[in-house]
């Protein structure tokens, strides 16, 4: 009996890449991964822990990492608060939700239509345009903050809702991943539909979109993260307080928390940080298998 048990976990079957089950040779990997994963989780556990800490625990000496008497006080404080300019916190959160939803929907639409053209249509500039997009993968937006500001100013987009959405729509990584994924759909499927008289729009809507769901999930996550976590747009391009995002509000908390309201500030900042982080995590957990299947098409040749 014991021998059998031992053989089960020490045979050749479960060695090497992508094993089916546990094997003794995997122990060393767990030994490396467990402490590392614990270390990497620390700051994230800390977000959860401090969001529920009552004030005396937030400022206890010596400091305690884990919360002892969890309370929702920080959250109720957060939502009963007004920003210094008189906008309720719920307004920032509302803005963030609307902006993120619109950005995700628009980004999926814009990138997937473009990917359809680059993957399945025939036209002269196809290779060139895809090459341009591939070069743009290395585009570092932060490097051109200033000319971007000038462009946005010229287009009269300053202080509008659209400035939150439009710049993010040009997402080279998104188009790249979608196009690569679409390449794996056999052309025969599309040719068959064309023979049946389907128009491009019908092919895109009825055939392509359902078949690229994993890639769409990936684009959705990437756009979500970019839009939801974005404080910069509000800082640079928005003057009207009621048009700014929750991420921006959080950034004001950390810069003023050193001032007079440090005691009140830290609790609500911790609660706000949790609200910022949690949606990212939940969405990724739900969509992770889709993301992984998209990533196997991500190669750059």
């Amino acid at each position: 009996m014991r021998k059998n048990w031992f053989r089960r976990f020490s045979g050749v079957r479960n060695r090497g890449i992508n094993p089916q089950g546990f094997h003794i040779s995997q122990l060393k990997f767990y030994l490396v991964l467990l402490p590392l994963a614990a270390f990497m989780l620390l700051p994230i556990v800390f977000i959860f822990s401090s969001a529920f800490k009552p004030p005396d625990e937030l400022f206890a000496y010596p400091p305690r990492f884990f919360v002892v008497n969890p309370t929702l006080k920080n959250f109720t404080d957060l939502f009963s608060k007004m920003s210094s300019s008189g906008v309720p916190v719920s307004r920032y959160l509302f803005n963030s939700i609307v902006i993120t939803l619109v950005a995700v929907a628009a980004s999926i639409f814009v990138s997937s239509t473009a990917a359809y053209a680059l993957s399945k249509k025939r036209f002269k500039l196809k290779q060139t345009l895809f090459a341009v997009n591939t070069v743009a993968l290395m585009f570092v937006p932060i490097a051109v903050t200033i000319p971007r500001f000038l462009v946005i100013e010229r287009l009269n987009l300053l202080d509008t809702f659209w400035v939150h959405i439009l710049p993010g729509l040009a997402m080279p990584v998104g188009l790249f991943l979608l196009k690569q994924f679409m390449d794996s759909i056999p052309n025969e499927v599309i040719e068959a539909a064309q023979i049946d008289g389907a128009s491009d729009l019908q092919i895109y809507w009825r055939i392509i979109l359902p078949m690229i769901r994993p890639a769409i999930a990936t684009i959705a996550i990437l756009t979500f993260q970019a839009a939801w976590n974005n404080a910069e747009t509000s800082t640079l391009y928005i003057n009207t307080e009621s048009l700014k995002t929750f991420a921006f509000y959080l950034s004001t908390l950390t810069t003023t928390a050193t001032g007079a309201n440090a005691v009140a500030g830290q609790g609500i900042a911790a609660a706000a940080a949790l609200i910022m982080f949690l949606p990212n995590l939940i969405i990724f957990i739900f969509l992770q298998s889709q993301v992984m299947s998209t990533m196997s098409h991500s190669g750059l040749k």
Partner: protein
Amino acid sequence: MPGRTSLRKWLYKEGNAYGFLSIYALMFFIFIVVPVLAAFLLSFTFFDTIQLPRFIGLRNYITLITQDDTFMKYVLPNTIQFAVIVGPGGYALAFLLAWVLAQLPKIPRTLFALILYSPSMTSGVAMAVVWKTLFSGDQIGYLNSFLMNLGIVQEPIQWLQSPDYLMTIMIVVTLWSSMGIGFLAMLAGILEINPELYEAAALDGMSSRWQEIFYITIPSMKPQMLFGAVMAIVGTFQAGAIGVTLSGSNPTPQYAGQLIVNHIEDYGFLRYEMGYAAAVSVVLLLMVLFFTRLSNRLFASEE
């Protein structure tokens, strides 16, 4: 009219394709192409946002190289130090972790992948709250309290305001959040490799895991390696604002954490010397281009 019929023919043949591309192409042009071109053009001008840009040739670049002491003494060495450790370091770490994860069965692998990826989901503004508490300069800061308990330090250290520690903390924090989509792509790439390759190599007498990595794993997933490399480079330079986020000031204390991105912001938004800032931007873009070219050399598929 021949011109019209050929236009109609072209529209019939290729019109739909351009139609599908149009919105993306427009956004791409407005928010990527134009800003890059504008940075390039502005870099040859003097521009203070009040008067029109005035052409001054290469003077911005000459000033940058010969007269900008901060740039040469702090910003450039800092950027290189930061980029070399976070870029290749983070990249190698991402590959090794992806490889280790690939040796595990699906459920623990997914769980660990989620844990390692989760820091890259956090946003700078949310994490600023955490870092400021963990590295707080007084004795209720977690790191200080921990080290004082162990007796390693006697007095609390101003971690984020100290020129001695700021850079190290910046590097650790950035590495912590560097397991992004490049990491996921490499993990997927390793899992895609045909297991028969390993069996064949084992039959040919290959015995060590390191040999496997260098002769089978990496060559079989060059495209993913390259994608990961590009993501690592972009991530590294994009992460440049971290010093200002941590220390709460631009310039950072004694320029200890000043990176090229902060230098651009310093000149562009604080001193309104847009032309000069644009020249620094161009230098930054060229650095990214150079490193991407380099990784292209390393991982280009032979075809």
